């Protein structure tokens, strides 16, 4: 990949109180690529993506999108740069219906009124594009299955032409069949040229989908490897011991520390 990266996060630092959540972490992501972020609980995966999605500000470090340095102060800024996040807890308002969730914060208006019909019609289009059927769009998402809810969350991201998708444990709450569906969605979105950060506990999940894997341990980047060039055991060693296998990628960041 000699092209310019879609996203580059350089030397990100973040501390909560006295605890260093992230120290000198550098990751990048290309268009049409899935990068897996793995590590134990508290390794800093979620903090890292929350900085990219505007939930937290970094203490220091720089973020580049298409080679241009950007400042992301809040979720709105992130969305402005085409960054969409699908959170682990789905971040859906259970009491609202699918269109309300898909358009939350970016409603289609008719004067001062919400244009509910237009949002319903657009929602149906985007869910059809994901090949996921939701029986009733006017029902609160509380009554939808896990897979359907995930589709609503993804639909919400792609409707606004996200270029960078952050998926935090997208299959954690799903049954095997629904997890497969989400896997299909990831392939589909990748094929459409999106860059995807995939965060997962499940090493098999990451191996199935990711082109490259960045491993974090206690707030530091252990390294970034090409999925095709390593084994699951190599990655597990990185996660647990924090040491690189022999064959790291040439342009990968060096182990922190």
């Amino acid at each position, binding site marked *: 990949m000699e092209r310019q990266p879609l996203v580059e996060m350089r030397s990100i630092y973040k501390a909560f109180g006295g605890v260093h959540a992230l120290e000198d972490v550098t990751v990048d992501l290309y268009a049409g690529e899935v990068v897996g972020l793995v590590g134990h609980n508290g390794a800093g995966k979620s903090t890292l993506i929350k900085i990219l*999605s505007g*939930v937290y500000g970094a203490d220091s470090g720089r973020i580049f999108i298409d080679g241009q340095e950007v400042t992301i102060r*809040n*979720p*709105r800024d992130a*969305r402005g740069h085409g960054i969409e*996040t699908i*959170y682990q*807890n*789905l*971040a*859906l*308002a*259970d*009491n*609202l219906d699918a269109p*309300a*969730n898909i358009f*939350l*914060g*970016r*409603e289609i*208006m008719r004067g*001062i*009124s*919400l244009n*509910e*019909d*237009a949002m*319903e*019609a657009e929602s*149906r289009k985007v*869910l*059809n594009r994901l*090949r996921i*059927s*939701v*029986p*009733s*769009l*006017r*029902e609160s998402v*509380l*009554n*939808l*299955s*896990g*897979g*359907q809810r995930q589709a609503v969350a993804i639909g919400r991201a792609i409707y606004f032409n996200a270029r960078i998708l952050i998926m935090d444990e997208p299959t954690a709450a799903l*049954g095997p*069949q*629904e997890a497969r569906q989400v896997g299909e969605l990831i392939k589909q979105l990748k094929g459409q040229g999106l860059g995807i950060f995939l965060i997962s506990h499940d090493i098999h999940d990451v191996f199935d989908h990711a082109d490259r894997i960045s491993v974090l341990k206690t707030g530091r980047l252990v390294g970034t490897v090409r999925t095709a060039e390593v084994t699951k055991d190599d990655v597990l060693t990185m996660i647990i011991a924090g040491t690189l296998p022999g064959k790291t990628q040439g342009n990968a960041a060096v182990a922190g520390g």
Partner: protein
Amino acid sequence: MSVETTAPRQTPAEAPPPARFGRVNVFQRFAAWAGFDTRLMGMVAALAVIWVGFHLQTGLFLTPRNLWNLMVQSSVVGVMVGGMVLVIVARQIDLSVGSVLGFVGMVMAFMQVQVFPLEVWWNPLATILIGLSLGALIGAFHGYVVAYLEVPSFIVTLGSLLAFRGGAWLVTSGRTMAPLDTTYQIFGGGINGSIGATWSWVGGLAAIVILVWYFVSSRARRRKYGFTVRPLWGEFLVIAINVGFVAGFVQLMNSYPFPGTTVPRGLPVPVLMMLGLGILMSTVLRSTRFWRYVFAIGGNPEAARFSGIPTRRITLVVFVIMGVLAAIAGIIATARLNAGTNSAGELAELSVIAAAVIGGTSLSGGVGSIPGAMIGAVLMESLRNGMVLMDLPSALQNVVQGAVLVLAVWLDVVYQRYRRR
């Protein structure tokens, strides 16, 4: 209303709700198809049972005179309950509404009687503007402390419950302010406080025209987007029920004459205010971004924040609306009594919260409806009215009202558990 997509559902395990409504499926489907809210229908049924029960006990309940009075009595709580729905939906509570009503009412009565000359045209206007601003200010204060200083609303408004009741006393050191301006008294629904038969019918017809226009235009819009619509006869049936309800209500309000005459009073002004505010909130306000955001905050505050919704500002506005509505209720209460007293609105917070909860507002946030809450207000007031007709002592009335509040919340808990399985 439901829109079926073509693809089949994946597995039986994830087939959505119908199964859980097994026993009442046909009824549920009919209600959904007709656009009726089953919970709302249940409440109307409960109201009917209460009314008939009291009538059988007293023989006085279902008379035009009593129902006319019942509507006027309901207006104080009915005006405030819409605001309480928003407050509770946004996962907050406001325990201070009764005291704010009392305080603002007292300030208005004081300005009207002691500061401004009585019976000049600008007196009621000026006092009302002062009252509404004061209500907004108090609401903004509550909202600011809750949203920005992050003090739980339960505590903030519990403090205000005490403080503003004291404030109401301090305005005049406990003296009652009376009599009030004649024009101002219109808002109380007294002898000059209703609009007469002709204007009542004009208003009723206007409401009917708007209703029909609403049904026709929303059908046309759904057509345009290719959504399913009801069969034509069903549409007519739904319109007929709504029109019949409006016409029946106007006729009822026109059946109570002035004392010693056959001249009908027509719609009382406070009832018009209650209905006007209720309709405004459940149509115009309901279709705004603001409304959607209040519900989103109630459903999942984190999701709301991640979606870039200014949650603090929205919470602040919710409390401002509540404060203004408490002030309007203060106008009605003082005008009706023709006096400002420091005890006005005592325990009103209880009725308002109970009305909202009975009307389907969930204390866990995110769920609530204005029409439901308005019916809840009428229901609470029906209990009080009926118990007065039965000559029950007020101590016993309080016991019943307190019990009804707890019962309503318990039913809500059961309902929520049932919904989530």
